[in-house]
């Protein structure tokens, strides 16, 4: 069994290096057939840049997603805490008969906005 596995492993390694050789040989052939003229890239480079752009997009998207979710959660937490705080302040106001200055126009607008 052990020998069979080793043999299989060798086959995979050989296939891997053969594939590498074919790819490099093809790239070399294309580069020699299409030397980089002014402004024109050879197709292999364009292909590599295309996959680089795709993976860059995927990594940026992976970075963006959790931040966007976390931002919504934090905003909800802020609104909830603000609401609780305003409620307690009103209760304190009643208990102490303390007259607080009314909300300014700006504060009213902003409160509406946060609602």
């Amino acid at each position, binding site marked *: 069994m052990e020998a069979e596995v080793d043999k299989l492993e060798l086959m995979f390694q050989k296939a891997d290096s053969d594939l590498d050789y074919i790819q490099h040989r093809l790239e070399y052939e294309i580069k020699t057939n299409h030397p980089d003229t002014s402004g024109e890239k050879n197709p292999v480079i364009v292909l590599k840049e295309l996959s680089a*752009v*795709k993976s860059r*997009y995927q990594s940026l*998207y992976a970075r*963006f997603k959790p931040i*966007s979710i976390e*931002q919504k959660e934090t*905003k909800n937490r*802020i609104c909830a805490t*603000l609401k609780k705080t305003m409620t307690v302040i009103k209760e304190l106001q009643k208990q102490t008969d303390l007259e607080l200055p009314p909300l300014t126009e*700006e*504060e009213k607008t*902003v*409160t509406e*906005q*946060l609602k």
Partner: protein
Amino acid sequence: TLKDDINSLLDKTRLENQESTDFLKATKILMK
């Protein structure tokens, strides 16, 4: 389509950023 995806995501992020900036300003006014 990759370009369209990026464009729509860019607009979405810009909008979210604008909203968060306004939200921050609003909350700071109330906290004064």
